[in-house]
């Protein structure tokens, strides 16, 4: 069973969603599975709560959606826009900066 996500997760789901959608278009269920697989179950997004995050990104212009009929079912596929690409680059940069900072602090706590 996957462990619950830690409390410092703010912004991480957005980064993961943008990164996965930069690769190819996906629908909600597919995205949740992709997050689980790519993070090795380290991060589990609430399956229903992924949609408000996706729709918010869509309203901000970072994502676009289109309906497709697949095997008699209507699926909403999400893909990244140019604005989403820029947002991803920005978040990726911020993530690397924070990750480097936290790693440095954890490895050398006596430098303060």
């Amino acid at each position, binding site marked *: 069973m996957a462990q619950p996500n830690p409390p410092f997760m703010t912004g991480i789901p957005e980064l993961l969603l943008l990164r996965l959608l930069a690769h190819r278009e996906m*629908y*909600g*269920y597919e995205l949740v599975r992709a997050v689980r697989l790519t993070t090795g179950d380290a991060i589990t997004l*609430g*399956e*229903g*709560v992924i*949609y*408000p*995050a996706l*729709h*918010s990104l869509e*309203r*901000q212009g970072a994502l676009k959606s289109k309906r497709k009929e697949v095997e008699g*079912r*209507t*699926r*909403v596929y999400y893909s990244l826009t140019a604005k989403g690409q820029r947002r991803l680059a920005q978040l990726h940069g911020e993530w690397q900066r924070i990750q480097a900072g936290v790693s440095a602090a954890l490895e050398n706590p006596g430098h303060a």
Partner: protein
Amino acid sequence: MPDPDFLAFQKCFVQQGVDPGYARRLTCELAEHYQDLRREAERSGVSPGEVAGFAAERLGSASAISAAIGEQPDLRSWVYRYPQLARLVLPLAFAALLPVAPLFAGINHAESVLRWTCCAMLSAIFTAVLLLCMQLSIALA
């Protein structure tokens, strides 16, 4: 366990201040996701009696999803996003609509209005005839 009541989900979202159109879209996507989860459960050998429970638990409750919507203020209707503006605009809009409200009501309930008008006219004719009879009886007495 029965399948979740997605209509109740939709009502819950609207009560949380979500735009009704968006609530419908969200509910449709959740229902599709739920079907995918059911298929996953069936494929992975979950017993038929536990499939619905498995899928519903993975999908999350309406309150959990509502809480996630609460974290995305841009998904809520403008009345919730700009309450001060709504308090100013809505009374003015309703005041402007008040004079034409009977017209809209008349169009929407044309049959009832027609029935009521006919009844009022018949009763007016009856009253007029009654008064005329009384007047004649006084005049001829």
